[in-house]
Every structure is written in structure tokens, then in C-alpha cells.
């Protein structure tokens, strides 16, 4: 029974059996965590992962295959798990606890730094050795389970939205990028070339804020041409690849087609998408928090790179002075361009915010440039890095971002915290061809689009006015368009002219437009 109001949604027998199978797989993992040591770990691990995967797929088949294709959000609010009932709170606490242990107490999972692993981590050793030749770490365990979740729930997602090819292709894409780029390729690369740092090629700075730390840069450089190519790719992906793709397709090419965080949110997080907060207040908080994280990550990365550069460019290609000047010039150029050509696209508070942040960053750069202290921006760069890594990298993206799926919805991290989403969002808002168009006067304000927007955008507010939606936060998942019962919304890439259109009168009412203009 649900704690939420409304009738319970009962499971049928086939669904119950599927749940049993899935949980039996989880039970093996739990036993391992509690210290039971299994013989033939490979067999037990395979059995466990297979049971979980089959359980999810069986459940999905039972839930969707017998029904005709179409949106079936029946009873979402009545189910305890998706309606903030007792199961939702339980799962939230369980996931949050798992993240805390994973990040801060990996020894409880069986990680042993100077000796053979125990418990859960040991269960994954065989698989890890097969891929990279190394014993498993807690991150390997996490990566394997994460990939399993995206693959299994990806199949569920595809079943649910099988009438919509955009959703199918997008989900196949995130499943592929998670399995190949995030999981298999880095492990295999580590096996082929032991000197290379572990590199998920689709993870772009600032999402992987550690990419330009000294140990990684040294690793890239010492690994010869391949390493150097990867370092150059890392820089190009921020400065060239990302803006070009975002210009053509909006930020969705990344956030809902490639990114692993997005991948988990779209697949395993799909049953929770309606829980995101759509209030104006949440929108205000979102804009300040996410852009503050972006500023923080820029400062932190600058400080970290600065701290290992020398006064001259003998060791790396840059000296401290050249680097700081370069950062200042780049930021000034971007800021000047926005203010010169795009200021009218920003609302007043966004302009104030941009100016304030710009002044703060330049002030800190100038302060540092003039004082030439050993500390960076008054703090030790290491302090900045660990603070970011703790607050943003662990607490925000992991513990809150994923642990609280069942309470706050699936994209809390993407919406409020991800600096990559912030950069892509600014690009999307200011110079992309992407927008969601609305279909004349057909909107009936039912609210399905807003409810099922995982990013908390009040889509209906635009649709009922017949306005295109060009919000920075939109990740282009396409669900608003899918759930619309009147076919009012469509994701489109098109010319930039007329992208933001605010009609005075919706289509359907025949008014003399010239007369209307003259009256104004």
C-alpha cells in the first residue's frame, strides 16, 4: 500500500516473480558486502548480475509488452515507489547510504589497499582482471553496476516508449556510450598502455574537473603521442567540438545522448521524472546554484593548473603568467562577445549575474597577478580542489544527485549542479539552432509536459502562449513532446531567425495584425 493518496497499483504474478528474481541478484551482492566470501566468484557474480538484469527486463516485458504502444503513465502517482511513498523514501535512504559508503568508507565494501580485496569488491575482482588486468576498486564495482542499471533500465525505457523512434535511438545511444566509452574502453586502454591515466573520452571538462590535474597531465605527456593526442582532444572537446555540436543540435547531443549522468537519469531515473520541482522559486535557485558551481570549477581548475606551472615554460608549454593571461583573455573575449551581440537575449538578472561573476573572476586573477603569492586566490589550490571534489564531486553529484532520485526527481544534479550542463546551456540559449516549437493554438494546458519534464521546466507556460522554448536547462530528452496528448510540442533544429517568438495572439483567432500593431 502506498503512503500517497489514491488506489494501490497491484503487481501481477509475472511482475512479482520478476521482482523476486531481481532482488535475489541484489541479495547475492548484499551477502558479499556483509562479508560472505563466495567460491567461484566469477560464477556468483555472473549469476547476480544476470538475475538483476533479467529481473528488470522481465518486469518491463510484463508491464509493457501486452499493452498497445503509447504513453502509459498510469498510476505513477499512486505507486509508493514513484509517488514519494514509503518505498521511495526507503530506496532514497538506501541509495544515499550506498553513495556515502562508496565515496567515504570504501573499506566497508571490501576495498583493501594493501592486500587482496574482501567482500563486494572481491566479488568483482575476476571481472576487473579480465578487462584491465588489475584487481577491482570500489569505482570498478560502481561502474559495473552503473552500466548494468543503464543497460537493463534502458531496455525498459525502450519498451515503454517504443512508439517513438527519437526515444529509442537516444536510449540506444546512451546505452552504447556507457558500455563502450565509460566502461569497456578505459579499462582496455589501461591494459594496453599502463601509463595512460584512466580516461573516459566522452567525459569533458568541467564535468571531469580533474582532467587537468598535474598527475593526469604528466600521465598524458609521459605516455607519448597517444597521451598527447588525448590531452589535445581534452582541450579541443571544450573549445571546439562542444560548441560546434551544440550550435547544430543544442545541448541534447551530450546531455541526453552521450552523458553517463544523463544516461542513468533517463533510464533508471525515468520512473521519477515527474518529481522535479517546477516552482518559480526552484527555477531561481537553479540559476544561481548551477552558475555558481560553474564559476567555482573555473577558479578551481585555474588554481590547480597554476599551482604546478613554473615561472617559465621549461617544463610545460606555459608559464604561470602566460596561463593566467590566457585565461583572462579567453574569459574577457567570451564575455565581451555575449554582451556585444547577445545581451538582449538575457533577462536583467542574468545580465547582472554575468557581470558580477565576470568581475569576481577577473578581480581574483588580477589580485593574484599583482601579488604573486604562493597561495592561489588566497587559498591553497589543494584546498580548493578538495573542497570542490568533496562538495560538488561527491555530495552533489552522487549522494544528492542520484541518491535522492525517488524524492527530488532524476535530474537534480544535471539541473542544479552540473557545470558542464551550465556551459552547454549558455551555448544553447545564446547561439544554438535548437528549440522546442509549439503547435499554433492546439495546447489545452493539461500540464503533462511540465509534469514529466525532468529538468523542472514549466513547458506548459510556454506552450499555452504558443511560444518556442529555448531554455538553457532543456536537455532535449523529448518526453514533453511524447507525453503531449495533442501533439503540440516538437524538438527542432532550425534557423536562428525567429527562434524566440512571442505572439500577441494565438493562432485560431483571426485578428487584423496590422491593426493590432498600430494599436500598440
Amino acid at each position, binding site marked *: 500500500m502506498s503512503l500517497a493518496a*489514491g*488506489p494501490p*497499483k497491484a503487481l501481477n504474478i509475472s511482475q512479482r516473480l520478476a521482482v523476486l528474481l531481481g532482488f535475489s541478484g541484489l541479495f547475492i551482492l548484499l551477502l558479499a558486502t556483509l562479508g560472505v566470501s563466495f567460491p567461484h566468484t566469477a560464477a556468483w557474480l555472473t549469476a547476480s548480475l544476470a538475475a538483476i538484469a533479467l529481473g528488470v527486463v522481465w518486469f518491463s516485458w510484463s508491464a509493457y509488452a501486452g499493452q*498497445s*504502444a*503509447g*504513453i502509459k*503513465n*498510469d*498510476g*505513477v*502517482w*499512486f*505507486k509508493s515507489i514513484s*509517488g514519494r511513498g514509503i518505498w521511495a523514501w526507503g530506496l532514497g535512504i538506501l541509495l544515499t547510504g550506498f553513495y556515502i559508503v562508496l565515496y567515504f568508507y570504501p573499506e566497508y565494501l571490501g576495498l583493501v589497499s594493501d592486500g587482496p580485496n574482501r567482500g563486494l569488491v572481491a566479488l568483482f575482482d575476476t571481472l576487473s582482471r579480465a578487462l584491465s588486468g588489475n584487481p577491482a576498486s570500489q569505482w570498478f564495482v560502481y561502474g559495473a553496476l552503473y552500466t548494468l542499471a543503464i543497460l537493463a533500465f534502458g531496455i525498459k525505457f525502450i519498451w515503454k516508449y517504443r*512508439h*517513438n*523512434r*527519437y526515444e529509442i*535511438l537516444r536510449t540506444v545511444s546512451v546505452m552504447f556510450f556507457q558500455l563502450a566509452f565509460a566502461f569497456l574502453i578505459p579499462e582496455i586502454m589501461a591494459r594496453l598502455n599502463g601509463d595512460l591515466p584512466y580516461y573516459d573520452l566522452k567525459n569533458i571538462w568541467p564535468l571531469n574537473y580533474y582532467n587537468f590535474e598535474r598527475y593526469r597531465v604528466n600521465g598524458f605527456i609521459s605516455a607519448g603521442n597517444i597521451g598527447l593526442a588525448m590531452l589535445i582532444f581534452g582541450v579541443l572537446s571544450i573549445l571546439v567540438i562542444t560548441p560546434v555540436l551544440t550550435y547544430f543540435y543544442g545541448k541534447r547531443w551530450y546531455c541526453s545522448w552521450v552523458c553517463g549522468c544523463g544516461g542513468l537519469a533517463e533510464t533508471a531515473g525515468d520512473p521519477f521524472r*515527474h518529481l522535479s520541482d517546477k*516552482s*518559480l522559486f526552484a527555477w531561481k535557485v537553479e540559476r544561481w546554484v548551477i552558475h555558481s558551481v560553474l564559476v567555482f570549477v573555473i577558479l578551481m581548475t585555474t588554481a590547480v593548473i597554476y599551482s604546478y606551472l613554473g615561472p617559465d615554460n621549461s617544463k610545460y608549454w606555459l608559464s604561470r603568467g602566460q596561463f593566467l593571461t590566457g585565461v583572462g583573455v579567453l574569459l574577457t573575449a567570451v564575455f565581451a562577445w555575449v554582451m556585444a551581440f547577445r545581451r538582449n537575449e538575457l533577462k536583467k538578472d542574468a545580465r547582472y549575474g554575468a557581470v558580477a561573476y565576470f568581475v569576481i573572476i577577473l578581480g581574483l586573477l588580477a589580485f593574484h597577478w599583482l601579488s604573486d603569492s604562493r597561495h592561489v586566490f588566497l587559498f591553497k589550490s589543494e584546498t580548493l580542489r578538495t573542497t570542490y571534489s568533496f562538495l560538488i564531486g561527491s555530495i552533489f553529484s552522487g549522494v544528492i544527485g542520484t541518491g535522492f532520485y525517488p524524492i527530488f526527481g532524476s535530474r537534480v544534479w544535471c539541473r542544479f549542479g552540473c557545470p558542464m550542463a551550465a556551459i552547454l546551456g549558455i551555448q544553447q540559449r545564446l547561439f544554438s539552432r535548437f528549440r522546442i516549437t509549439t*503547435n*499554433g*493554438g*492546439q495546447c*489545452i*494546458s*493539461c*500540464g*503533462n509536459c*511540465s*509534469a514529466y519534464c525532468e529538468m523542472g521546466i514549466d513547458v*506548459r*507556460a510556454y506552450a*499555452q502562449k504558443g511560444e518556442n522554448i529555448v531554455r538553457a536547462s532543456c536537455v532535449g530528452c*523529448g518526453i514533453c*513532446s*511524447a507525453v503531449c*496528448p*495533442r*501533439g503540440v510540442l*516538437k*524538438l*527542432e533544429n532550425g534557423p536562428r531567425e525567429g527562434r524566440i517568438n512571442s505572439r500577441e*495572439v*494565438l*493562432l*485560431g*483567432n*483571426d*485578428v487584423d495584425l496590422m491593426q493590432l500593431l498600430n*494599436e500598440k
Partner: protein
Amino acid sequence: MHIVIIGNGISGITAARFIRKAADHSITVISAETDHFFSRTALMYIYMGHLTYEQTKPYEDSFWKKNRIDLVNAWVESVDPAAKTVRLSEGASIRYDKLILATGSKPNKFGWPGQDLPGVQGLYSKQDLDNLEANAPDNRTCKRAIIVGGGLIGIELAEMLRTRDIPVTFLVRENSFWSGVLPAGESAMINEHIREHHIDLRLGTNLVEILADDTGRARAVTTDKGETIDCDLVGLTAGVTPNIGFLDGSGIETGKGVLVNRFLETNHADIYAIGDCAEQREPIGNRRPVEAVWYTGRMMGEAVAQTICGNRREYKPGHWFNSAKFLDIEYQTYGWVMSGKNRGPRELHFHWRHPEKKICLTLAYDSKTRQLLGANTFGMRMRHEVFDAWLTEQRSIDAVVRDLRVACFDPEFHRDYHPLITRAFKEHEPVNA
């Protein structure tokens, strides 16, 4: 100036919002249905568990205070045009300078025996939904539901009940679903789709009587086929009529609804009527005098707001359009595609249906000029703006079929049926049955 609006549906609220945009008048909205405006069209999604009631409200509760729109939760008992007051059922009176009637509709009842029994209800208001939650919370309390009336609300109610696994018998007077509006091919496809969803569709069947049990609740219905069907719920969804009973004796002229001219003015200066409850004295094109449609309510709200704010504007709806969803099939219509007897002698139809899927298209055109008259689409989305422009420029059916891709509004990567449609068009025999 004090403007009083009776009814907080889409018409009344649109009027209030546009008056606020244009002027500083004080605005009072009276409704006993709910405290705040919600989207009536989304009521079904609350019962189905897709949305909460809160999510059906297009504006946050703080919106009304911020925009200085006063909300009064009360029933209006009568209107006195001479004293310019409305009387509330609690006894209080409110004076107005301008009055807008936007009271919407109520479900039709055609004098069936037993139509007022407990367990018999329509589906229009928030209260109807609350009743449904009490009458049919699950399939143990409600072992079978009977739905009477083969239109849009009927099929929505059937879909709602099916999400709670309640068996549904759907009595439709016509020989095919919504055949007064849909051409035969489309109507036939929807019949199939209804049955696919395990709804017991009885075509050509009329309700005769609703029978009561010992406690006075509805327990069964009898049909004109001589059957008695046990049930715990009877849904009456045979259309709606204007909700204007409280105007009796006020001197405001009414027919089926409140009679208005093209400026939405009633026979009394300073009293206007909009939305479902208004009836046009002069018909507008092919439109019915009373149009219980979401969009037209919104358009009337816009128009009357302009008039009241000193910019007298005619209600001038453009080309007809509408949309709906039949279980899993989306439906859109632009212009006029007439069914059965309504079809003029020169109206021809090109009808295409996908060989396997529940997707079809009907284009109506003039047999002499080949001008496009209207389009119905099922399972595919069309761009409103494009069809609106095509109807205005009186484009030929040949050019419409040729450029159909331009009008496509389906999501990216959808299957393109255009080649199939083009081929079918070349081979088609004009249908004018």
C-alpha cells in the same frame, strides 16, 4: 471599474488575464468549483494517476494575488441586471460595473428513468471527478461501469476506468463511434481500437432505464436491445449543455445558452457571455452556435477582454481546428471534413490508412475547384500554422499532398509515410458516399 467574472474555467480566466494585461480595473472571479483555475481537460489524468490536482493548475497560487485578481469561492444564485449585482447563495451580493458570464456546461440528461440515482454521473467538473473517485475507486467496488454516449468524454471515461482494470460497457447510439463527426473509415478504425483495449463497445444501442437496488443506488441498466447489464457506475457522457439555470428570471435572453452577438454582448449592456455557455445569435461559418471547445473559450476570453478595455473587438475565430486523443491515437483536424449526411454534394474525400498501423489521413476537397476544405489526421501530427495558411490561400488538394512533408509535426526520426500517401493519392478513387 469593477469587473465580475462568473466561472474560473479557461474562458473566464483568459478574460481576467487579458483585462489585467490591458487595464487596471478591479477584477473578481467567482467560482464554487475550485479555489484556483485548473485545466478541465486534464481531469482524466488525475484519475489515471499521471498528474496530481496541483499539476493541473497552470499558474501557481501566488499568481492571483500578484496580478490582483480576486477569487471568491461561492455559488451564484441569481443576477440582477437592473441593480447591477450578483447574489451569492450565502446571501451576500456583489456589485459589478461589467459582468462576464463564463459558467461553462453541465452533462446532458435526456430524461432517462433513474438518471439522478447515486452512482450515475457525468464527467465535467472537479466534483464529478471526486464523485468518480468515490463511485469507482477500484474494480472491487465497481465491478462494471456503463458509459452512455459515444463522444470524446465517453471514450476518455472508458480509458480512465480501464487504467484501474474496471470492466467497461460502452453504449453508443450511432452505428459507429462518433460517426456524426468522423467519416466512416476513421470511425471504423476507432471502433477497432476501442475493442483492442478490452472495452465492451455496443454500437447502435440506446439506454432505456437505470435500475436501482434496495438502497437506491444504480445497480443495472436496460438497453433497447432488451438486455439488462449489471453495473456499479453509469457514466452519462452524451454531450453537454450550457450551465445557465441561475439566469432564469433575470431578463438576460437565453436560448440553449446565453444569446450573444459577435462582440459577445448579451441583450443587457455591460453583461457579456463567453465560452461553453454562450450561444451565437448569428452562426459563424459552419460552426455551431454553442461551441463547447477549450480553444474557442480561450479566444472568446481574449476578445471580450479587449472589448471591455475599450478596444471593441469582434469574436472572429479563424479556420476551425481541434484535437483529441482516442486511447493511444492522436487526432487533429483543420478546416472542415464532414461526415455522412452533413457532407455537401461537391465535397470529396481522399482517405488513406496505413496497411497495418492505426494511422490514417482524410483530406476533404471540392470536386470542381479541387480546393482543400479540411484535413483529419490520426496517429500523425500536423503543423497548425501550415494548414491554417493552406486553408487561407485555398490551396489545391494536389499541392497539399505534394507538400505534406512541410506540414509534418511528428518527432524527429519518425517513419515517413509520405511516399505511401503520395502513391495512394495517385491511385485513389474520390469517395463521396
